C-alpha cells in the first residue's frame, strides 16, 4: 500500500523509507512558530527545563499578532517577554509592530514555509501551510518549547480523508464556502486525528488564497493537518518567494484513504456557519431567509485577511454604505496586504462605505480587543470559530462567512447574499 502526501513528508523527516497510519515517529522540524500568547508559556517551560540554546535560530518564527499592538498592560508584558527571548537567542524571524502580520498570512507571504516542509506552531491554525503542500500542524506551548530546543517533535502518523475536487467555483463562492460546506458535511470532529488531503481537477479553480483559507480551517473538522497537492498555482506562488529549496510530494496512486469524499465546486453556494459550531453550515439562501439582523461585521484574520479577501469585500462595498447601527471592521492581515489595499483603492472604498480599517491583529477573532461583542450582539465574521463567547459576551453570536457575504451583510444590516445586493 502506498503513502499519502502527509505520510511521505513525515517519513522523509523521520529518516524512514515508509511510515503507516498509527505509527509513532520522531520528526525533524523545518519551522517552529509561536505568537504573543503561546510563546510566553513556551518560554517559561523552555527556561524551567534548563535549556540554554535553540536548535536553529533561522527556523523559529515568533509573531506578535494576537494582542498586539498591546491591548493592555498584561498583554504588553507578554510581548515584552517574547521580545527579550528573541533578542537573547538572536531569533531571526521575530515580527513585531511595524513588520508583523497575522502569523498564518505572514509566514507564507514571507516565504518562510514551503512545500515538503515539516512545521509545528503553537497556534491551532498552523495547519494553514498545508495549502503549500507542507505538513504543518498546531501544537501547544510545551511542544513548541521542545521543538525550539531540539528541532524535533513526536507525531502519530495520521490516516487520511481524500477530498477529490471537481468543477470550478462560480459566482460569489470562495474557498471559505467550500471549507464551511465540507465541515457542515463531516462535522467538527469528522476528521479527528486525520489528514484532510485535497486534490483533483477542481484545484485549478482555487487560488492560493482560497487554498490557504481551506487548509486554515482543517482544524475546525478536528484534523491534524490539511494538505493540498502542489500544482502550477502553488509553484507560481512559491517561486521567488520561498527562502529555501522546497520538495514536492505527490500521493502514491495506491495511497490508503479512510474515505474519499467528492466535492463538486460548481455546486458550492456561499455558505454561513451559524452559532455555536463551524459545522452548523447553511447555504446563503437559507441563511438570508432566516432574516438575522446583525450588529457587527469583521473582515480579516488568518482565514480571510489576504488580498483577494480584501478585493472580494471591496467589490461588494464599492459605492455602498454600511447599514446604520452596524460596525464594520476591516483588518488586512499583513503590512503588505494593508499597503496593497491602499494602492488598489480598496481602503478608500472601505472608508467611503463607513468601515474602520485596522492595522493587522488577531484581536476580534478571539474576543481579545478591536471589536468585542456585547450581550446578545450578533456578528458576521470571516474568521474561523463561532464558539460560545468566542468574540465577546457568552450570549453574543458569531456567524462565519466569506468576505463577500460579510460585506453584503454589512450593507444590508442582516445576513445577505452578495449576489442580491443591488448595484
Amino acid at each position, binding site marked *: 500500500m502506498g503513502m499519502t502526501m502527509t505520510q511521505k513528508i513525515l517519513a522523509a523527516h523521520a529518516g524512514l523509507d515508509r511510515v503507516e497510519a498509527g505509527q509513532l515517529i520522531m520528526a525533524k522540524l523545518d519551522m517552529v512558530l509561536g505568537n504573543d500568547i503561546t510563546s510566553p508559556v513556551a518560554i517559561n517551560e523552555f527556561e524551567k527545563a534548563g535549556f540554554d540554546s535553540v536548535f536553529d535560530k533561522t527556523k523559529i518564527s515568533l509573531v506578535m499578532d494576537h494582542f498586539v499592538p498591546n491591548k493592555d498592560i498584561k498583554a504588553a508584558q507578554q510581548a515584552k517577554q517574547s521580545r527579550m527571548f528573541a533578542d537573547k537567542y538572536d531569533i531571526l524571524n521575530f515580527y513585531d509592530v511595524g513588520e508583523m502580520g497575522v502569523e498564518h498570512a505572514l509566514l507564507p507571504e514571507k516565504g518562510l514555509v514551503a512545500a515538503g516542509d515539516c512545521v509545528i506552531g503553537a497556534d491551532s491554525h498552523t495547519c494553514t501551510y498545508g495549502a503549500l503542500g507542507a505538513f504543518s500542524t498546531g501544537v*501547544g506551548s510545551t511542544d513548541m518549547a521542545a521543538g525550539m530546543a531540539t528541532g524535533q517533535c513526536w507525531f502519530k502518523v495520521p490516516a487520511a480523508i481524500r477530498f477529490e475536487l471537481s468543477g470550478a467555483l462560480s459566482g460569489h463562492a470562495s474557498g471559505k464556502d467550500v471549507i464551511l460546506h465540507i465541515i457542515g458535511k463531516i462535522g467538527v470532529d469528522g476528521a479527528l*486525528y486525520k489528514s484532510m488531503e485535497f486534490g483533483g481537477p477542481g484545484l485549478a479553480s482555487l487560488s492560493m488564497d482560497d487554498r490557504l483559507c481551506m487548509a486554515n480551517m482543517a482544524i475546525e473538522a*478536528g484534523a491534524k493537518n490539511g494538505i493540498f497537492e502542489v500544482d502550477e498555482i502553488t509553484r507560481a506562488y512559491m517561486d521567488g518567494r520561498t527562502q529555501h529549496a522546497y520538495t514536492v510530494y505527490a500521493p502514491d496512486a495506491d495511497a490508503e484513504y479512510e474515505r474519499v469524499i467528492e466535492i463538486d465546486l460548481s455546486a458550492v453556494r456561499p455558505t454561513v456557519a451559524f452559532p455555536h459550531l463551524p459545522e452548523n453550515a447553511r447555504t446563503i439562501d437559507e441563511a438570508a431567509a432566516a432574516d438575522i439582523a446583525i450588529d457587527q461585521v469583521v473582515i480579516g484574520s488568518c482565514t480571510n485577511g489576504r488580498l483577494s479577501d480584501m478585493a472580494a469585500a471591496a467589490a461588494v462595498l464599492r459605492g455602498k454604505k454600511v447599514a446604520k447601527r452596524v460596525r464594520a471592521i476591516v483588518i488586512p492581515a499583513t503590512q503588505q496586504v494593508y499597503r496593497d489595499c491602499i494602492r488598489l483603492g480598496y481602503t478608500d472604498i472601505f472608508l467611503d462605505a463607513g468601515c474602520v480599517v485596522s492595522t493587522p491583529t488577531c484581536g476580534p477573532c478571539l474576543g481579545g480587543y478591536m471589536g468585542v461583542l456585547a450581550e446578545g450582539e450578533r456578528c458576521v465574521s470571516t474568521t474561523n470559530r463561532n464558539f460560545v463567547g468566542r468574540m465577546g459576551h457568552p450570549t453574543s453570536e458569531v456567524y462565519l462567512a466569506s468576505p463577500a457575504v460579510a460585506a453584503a451583510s454589512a450593507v444590508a444590516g442582516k445576513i445577505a447574499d452578495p449576489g442580491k445586493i443591488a448595484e
Partner: protein
Amino acid sequence: MVQGKAHKYPDNVDTDVIIPARYLNTASHKELAAHCMEDIDKDFVKNVRPGDIIAAGWNFGCGSSREHAPIAIKESGVACVIAKSFARIFYRNAINIGLPIFECEAAGSAIENGDEVAVDYNTGVITNLTKHETYQAQPLPEFIQHIVDKGGLLKSLQ
C-alpha cells in the same frame, strides 16, 4: 487511584469555554484557574474541589491550541479528565503538562454530574460509586505512557 465528584459536560467542549481568550493576557496558572470553565459553567470554580474529575462527551478540548486550557483545569484541582474522545491538540497538551486524561466512551456516556467516581491510573479502570458501575478506558500507547510517567514532555527529554 483518585476519587472525586464528577463535573459533567456535553460534546465539543471547546478551549474558548474552558478558558476564554480574554484571560490569555497572562500565563499565571492561578489567574487562569480562577476563570476555568467560566463560559460554560460559571459556578465551576466555586464548586470544584481538589481531586474532582471532569467527564464529557466527544471531542473534548476542540478549538485553539492554548495550553492555558489544560493548565487551568489542572490548577483548578481537577485530578483527571474522562471523555468519549479528545481533540488532538488538547490531548497532546494534557499529556505534555501532566494532566491525566482517559478516553472512554462508556464512562463519557454514563457518568452524570455529581457522581462519585474513582479512577485507577495504572489499569484505566473507572468506577462509578454512585451508579455501582465500572468502565475500562483505552490504555495510552507505551511511548505516551513514558511521557506521562516522567511527568511531562520536557522532563522526558532530560
